[in-house]
């Protein structure tokens, strides 16, 4: 009994999770190089199948209905954001596949990848991220020190050039399955928990004086947020009907006049 009640409830909670993820995407509509998350929702198996039980007596008909939906996973979108020209020599945008390598903490676990190319120079002359001041690494995982009083050129392969000589090369890496990266906030992403960052040379290119805008599709996200609201509403309506039905069953059917 009341099977529909739980199916509707699962739908409501899945849609609310979707709304949470989408509203974070929308809140980051102006965040440089932000990649939206997509929430995967899948059909839930009935309890007997989900728990791997063979002998749980259950209703064949209901079993075929499934057990509603559940949010399973979020994936980081890899879609390209628009590249906007800023004119600032320390802004780099990435076109196509690739990430910059940043050190957020010592050791291999402290490595982060990011597509946020807002760079600045620290008081020690190091090339760092503008938002947190984490050092941006070169191809051999070392920080890059530049002469801040000379014009700086960053070539499309990541070569940092001052006075016509290459002084360093930005690590420009691609990771296998970028949609599985774990966001750690501040536009940084880390390898999934318990794994080290696998990397290979990136195929994209670096554009100096550009920044990649947020890849959130505002129109689509806005529509989805609204539709999630409506889906929750319809779930609630169904629950209301079921409630009413049960009320009838309890109060009218059982009444002996």
């Amino acid at each position, binding site marked *: 009994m009341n099977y529909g009640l739980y199916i509707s409830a699962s739908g409501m909670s899945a849609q609310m999770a979707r709304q949470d993820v989408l509203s974070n995407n929308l809140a980051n509509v102006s965040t440089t190089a932000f990649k939206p*998350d997509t929430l995967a929702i899948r059909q839930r198996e009935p309890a007997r199948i989900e728990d791997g039980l063979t002998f749980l007596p259950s209703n064949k008909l209901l079993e075929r209905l499934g057990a509603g939906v559940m949010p399973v996973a979020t994936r980081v979108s890899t879609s390209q954001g628009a590249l906007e020209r800023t*004119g600032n020599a320390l802004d780099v945008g990435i076109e196509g596949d690739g990430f910059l390598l940043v050190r957020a903490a010592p050791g291999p676990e402290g490595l982060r990848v990011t597509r946020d190319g807002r760079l600045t120079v620290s008081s020690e002359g190091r090339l760092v991220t503008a938002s947190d001041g984490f050092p941006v690494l070169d191809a051999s995982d070392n920080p890059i020190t530049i002469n801040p009083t000379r014009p700086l050129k960053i070539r499309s392969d990541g070569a940092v050039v001052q006075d016509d000589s290459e002084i360093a090369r930005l690590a420009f890496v691609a990771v296998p399955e970028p949609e599985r990266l774990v966001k750690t906030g501040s536009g940084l992403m880390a390898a999934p928990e318990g794994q080290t960052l696998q990397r290979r040379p990136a195929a994209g290119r670096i554009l100096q004086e550009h920044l990649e805008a947020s890849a959130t599709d505002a129109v689509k996200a806005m529509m989805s947020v609204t539709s999630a609201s409506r889906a929750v509403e319809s779930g609630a309506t169904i629950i209301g009907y079921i409630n009413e039905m049960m009320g009838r069953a309890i109060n009218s059917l059982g009444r002996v006049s």
Partner: protein
Amino acid sequence: MALVALHSAATGLSALNTDLDVIANNLANVNTEGFKSSRTNFQDLIYQEKELPGVENANGDERPTGLYVGLGVKVSGTQLDFTQGAPLNTGRDLDLMIDGIGFFQVQVEDDRAPGGVAYTRAGNFTVNSEGEIVLANDQGRRLVPNITVPQDAIKLTVNADGRVFVLQPGQNEPAEIGQIEIAAFINPAGLKQAGENLYIETGASGPPITGQPATQNFGRIQAGFLEGSNVDPTRELIDLIRTQRAFEMNSNVIRAADETLRSVANLRR
């Protein structure tokens, strides 16, 4: 639950509100000499981990990806853009522009800045009643190191390397009366904006490196010009439109989350 959506949208509104303030200030200073525009840097907040990746299910399969819900956005800071502003030809002897890297040094109250020196790109100087070269604003900040112009000077010239010459009556050759020094910073974006077109040294900017204009990497002095504001009004207006629309969208999310919550609240009638 939808409460997260509500909060995410609220962080979006407050971050975009800050952006709006920064854009408004940039636009207000579109005609301020030596003004450098700022931009707002956004960053995503931490993510709430709902499901860990790598957890095994009953069949022994590992979950390939986790379930993370982001908690919104914040302003990580404002970043100054030190690109050169357009030169404005004024023809005044003491309107100076630095073409390239460097700041003029002016004297401020000792408790306002380390060493009582602040830095500016606005070179609209003049001479005060004692003949000292000062900034032509209501405070009359003295140039550091100070140069005193003789009372009987007929003509004053500042050349590209910052040397100041005056022509006095009865003389054919202009006499050198001082040298303007300019300062550079390893990280000018780390300077503190102090109003009055002044910047103040901080730990992030590093200590000033002073030197003579047109030497080493320092910029050249252009007399008779002022550096215009580097605010690009077109860009700012586009940013303004974008910010306003993003603001609207986030407020719509609040409405949507509110409707969701109302549906939930009305479950039991």
